């Protein structure tokens, strides 16, 4: 590789860095959200390296110890190290958020696209089904589904993702209808372009922005709902180091004064949700500056 190429690459890198720097200065809050998300991802990936103890490592001689230098966040009912479990918890909660969003997004978009594209009675039926699902308060429907399926990590993800399906379906269907009515698409059909290609070129780019914003926001809410469901025993079970379960272990401990058992896992939830929320908000601002 010649020196000139290296120099130009370095110049490019600098330019990118400068652009990023300017963006961060202008959107410090959104940037903070991004930083939180990135940090969580690193923690999730590197948990075994970073955590001082294993997630299931118990120290029965040191039960319910207050935060100290050897146990940063203290220890729990069974002598588990809460700091390590909070770090490992990032794996589960991010997985839940990602799984719930991904499944909800795929199913919702498929339904919305299908209904919007086919139209007529099919559209009507699917949209009425979506209406039925959104007639429920979200958390309560998730509770019902999780309860029916039984408590497990997989069912928890399924329950939360199903609740969000109508959101994506509506967004997707809406933009399908817009494009379908636009003259652009009519003309393209007239010229004989195959329907799928029309979709790919004329439709999808406009659709993804609002869906992506929703997905980011829902990622945070999914973590929150998952924690809530685990808290009432409808989600992940012990000994999985999921943050909601960990908070629920602290209910009785609060009254006896061991606040750290539930405090730190709950804080982790709050920080994670905040990260996704700030980013989602920032992205929405880019689209519609009025709302925030």
């Amino acid at each position, binding site marked *: 590789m010649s020196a000139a190429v290296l120099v130009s690459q370095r110049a490019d890198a600098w330019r990118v860095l400068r652009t990023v720097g300017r963006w961060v200065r202008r959107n410090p809050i959104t940037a903070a959200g991004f930083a939180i998300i990135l940090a969580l991802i690193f923690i999730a990936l590197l948990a075994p390296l970073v955590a001082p103890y294993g997630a299931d490592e118990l120290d029965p001689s040191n039960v319910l110890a207050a935060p100290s230098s050897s146990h940063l966040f203290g220890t729990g009912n069974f002598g588990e190290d809460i700091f390590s479990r909070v770090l490992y918890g990032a794996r589960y909660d991010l997985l839940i958020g990602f799984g719930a969003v991904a499944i909800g997004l795929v199913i919702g978009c498929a339904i919305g696209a299908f209904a919007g594209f086919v139209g007529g009675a099919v559209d009507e039926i699917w949209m009425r089904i979506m209406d039925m699902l959104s007639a429920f*308060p979200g958390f309560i429907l998730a*509770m019902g589904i999780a309860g029916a399926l039984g408590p497990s990590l997989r069912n928890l993800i399924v329950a939360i993702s199903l609740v969000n399906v109508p959101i994506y379906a509506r967004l997707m269907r809406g933009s399908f209808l817009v494009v379908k009515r636009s003259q652009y698409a009519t003309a393209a059909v007239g010229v004989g372009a195959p329907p799928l290609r029309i979709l790919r070129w004329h439709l999808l780019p406009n659709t993804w922005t609002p869906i992506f914003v929703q997905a980011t926001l829902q990622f945070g809410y999914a973590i929150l709902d998952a924690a809530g469901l685990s808290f*009432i025993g409808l989600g992940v079970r012990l000994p999985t180091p999921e943050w909601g379960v960990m908070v629920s272990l602290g209910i009785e401990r609060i009254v006896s004064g061991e606040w750290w058992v539930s405090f730190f896992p709950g804080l982790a939830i709050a920080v994670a949700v905040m990260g996704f929320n700030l980013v989602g908000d920032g992205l929405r601002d880019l689209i519609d500056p009025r709302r925030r």
Partner: protein
Amino acid sequence: MTFYAARRLVLLVPVLLGVTLVTFALTRVIPGNPIDQLISPLASPAERTQLIHEHGLDQPFYVQYVDYVRDLLHGDLGTSFTTSQPVLHDLTSRFAATFELTLYAMLVALIVGIPLGIAAAVRQGRLVDHVSRILAVSGIALPVFWLSLTLLYVFFLRLHWLPAPYGRIDPSLETPRHITGLYTIDSLFTGDWAAFRSSAEALILPVGVLAFGVMAPIARITRSGMLEALESDYVRAARSLGLPDRTVVLRHAFRNAALPLITMIAVVYGYLLGGVVLVEQIFAWPGLGRYVFNAITSSDYPSVQGFILYATTIYVLLFLVVDLLYLAIDPRIRHARAGG
């Protein structure tokens, strides 16, 4: 107007049928068979078949559904495994406790959230706006159950400012005579100051926690509605007429911003109904939420189902109220409906 209201009521029927379809579907996907919940593991295969037949579980799906809806129409939500009472009775007898909690939470959220949203819009980009955004983001992000535990630790255990999480009223006191079912109101009616004080104190934390969570969307929707209204031509025209700022902001702009706000209030009540499931357990609040929590932990599925249906019906009816309020506020809708 009455005609429109009647029509909306009729339209409610398919929605509620849809809701029952979903809840029915949920009862049928329980892993294994609902019959396993009812029968002793030692029962013989014959007894088992007998029980399945008695419960109509060998019938085709649609027959089972029709039976289910017919039972619902008779107010039969099944019998709770844990209390051995009809589920509907269990729920209605616990409604007042939850209603008191959610009503105050909603009022607090509105009283704080609306002025905050208005201030944030009027002083966009200034300190109030930033404070409101920070409050909004934390209101959304802090899990209610965690906030409950943390505040309980601080205000009860450390500071002793607030009472122990004993439920609605100090157990050593007599509950006020039932008038409205809301202890704070009933104790006022009966002039029982001790009961009033105790029940009000018991409300502070759970109401505060729930209100903090729902205040965020209230403030945000108020802000965005106000921003839109403040930039509108009619607000500029109102200003050009020299009307006082108060009149312009509160009468002209806010009235228009109130329309999306009303919808948000209904949506947010749905959050509250979910939130009580988490919060009531922590505060030993004898309402719907605690009932479901216990039902879940003891696999009392009829109760859980009943609660879902009950809460959703409240939620759906609330949206009917929203529609009627729109009608009362917005003359454009009123006339469009009257004409069409």
